[in-house]
């Protein structure tokens, strides 16, 4: 979906206004610290994956997504997931199905991460140097192909192997697709004045078609 989160190339947002690196606190208020920890801790229950979590934040009305601060969007996303999965009722009725991490479990999960590389089930369709076009896709669900490169021509610069495919993963189906890194020229994306600049984007095979 191309909701409020799909920001690449949008105009009208004004300057970046970065806080100086040496002055910026990790969290700007206590509630940010708490929602950060709550989001990670509940994620460790294994009831949803990272793409479901991203999709829960993206599904807000674009006006709300853009108006909210970053951690407000995390709060919205977590509340939505808890309701959708009905987790409070689930743990009351099926406590035996839950393994709730303690401090040691949490540290272990953070240090292990969740690698997305999978064994290849078929050979890749593209290789480095191939010219491709990004398909135009207007679909309602979660996807990781930004709007600003849809329809654009690019070149494959790397093949990262088979990785969990977000469009399916967001529906709770862990399947793999070949993942590539592609280079797009700035002047193709933004006009002829954007010379000596390019954008590299990681894209899965179903987002791409060959060009001759």
């Amino acid at each position, binding site marked *: 979906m191309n909701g409020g*989160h799909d920001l690449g190339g949008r105009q009208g947002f004004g300057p970046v206004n970065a806080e100086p690196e040496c002055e910026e606190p990790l969290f700007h208020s206590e509630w940010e610290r708490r929602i950060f*920890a709550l989001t990670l801790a509940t994620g460790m229950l294994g009831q949803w994956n990272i793409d479901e979590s991203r999709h829960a934040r993206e599904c807000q009305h674009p006006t709300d997504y853009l108006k909210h601060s970053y951690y407000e969007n995390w709060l919205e996303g977590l509340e939505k997931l808890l309701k959708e999965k009905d987790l409070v009722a689930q743990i009351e009725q099926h406590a035996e199905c839950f393994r709730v991490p303690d401090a040691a479990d949490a540290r272990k999960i*953070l240090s292990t991460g969740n690698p997305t590389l999978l064994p290849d089930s078929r050979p890749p369709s593209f290789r480095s140097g191939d010219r491709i076009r990004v398909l135009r896709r207007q679909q309602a669900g979660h996807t*990781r192909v930004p709007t600003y490169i849809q329809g654009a021509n690019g070149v494959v610069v790397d093949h990262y192997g088979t990785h969990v495919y977000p469009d399916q993963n967001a529906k709770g189906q862990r399947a793999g697709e070949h993942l590539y890194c592609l280079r797009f020229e700035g002047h193709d994306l933004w006009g002829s004045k954007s010379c000596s600049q390019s954008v*590299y984007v990681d894209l899965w095979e179903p987002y791409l078609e060959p060009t001759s």
Partner: protein
Amino acid sequence: MSHDHDHTVLPSDLELRVKALESLLLEKGLVKRDALDAIIETYEHQVGPKNGAHVVAKAWSDLSFKQALFEDATATVAELGYFGRQGEHLTVVENTPDIHNLVVCTLCSCYPWTLLGLPPVWYKSAPYRARAVSEPRKVLSEFGTSVAEHTDIRVWDSTSEMRYLVLPERPPGTENLSESQLQGLVTRNSMIGVEMARPGNEGAK
């Protein structure tokens, strides 16, 4: 932040909402308090840009380490102990006089946590996410960074679970600095690509 927080005012709606949510989750046993503490402690005290600075300073000092980084960054930094959430797959991209790299996530906030910790507010903001891909030179100028007209600017949009770290250029005049002195020159922003590393005369502190 304490200096602009007036404790006599009522807590904000957000504070109340988060507090209510935390109380509910603790009461129902969906989270444990010590796990929350461990998560916060990890990102406030264990994982941060000093990890990335270690990797960069080592790459500046040790050519074989640098080559290993370009061949397999994930395994090479894992040998230093840097592996985990939001650092499962890693690529290091090198700045040179002809190439300047810049990292963004236009769709959310993907960022190499294992090496840089949690992203700053501006990295997650709409202006940066919108403009880094379309007008990187203007965005860089807002950080006080100017890149020569002929330099190829490469913007890395982190749309997959691959995380990108910029290897900034080693500042001139730093040949005699030790690896630990070099670490002092490597800022978080230089590893995102919005700034250069600090000049060499700031290293020995």
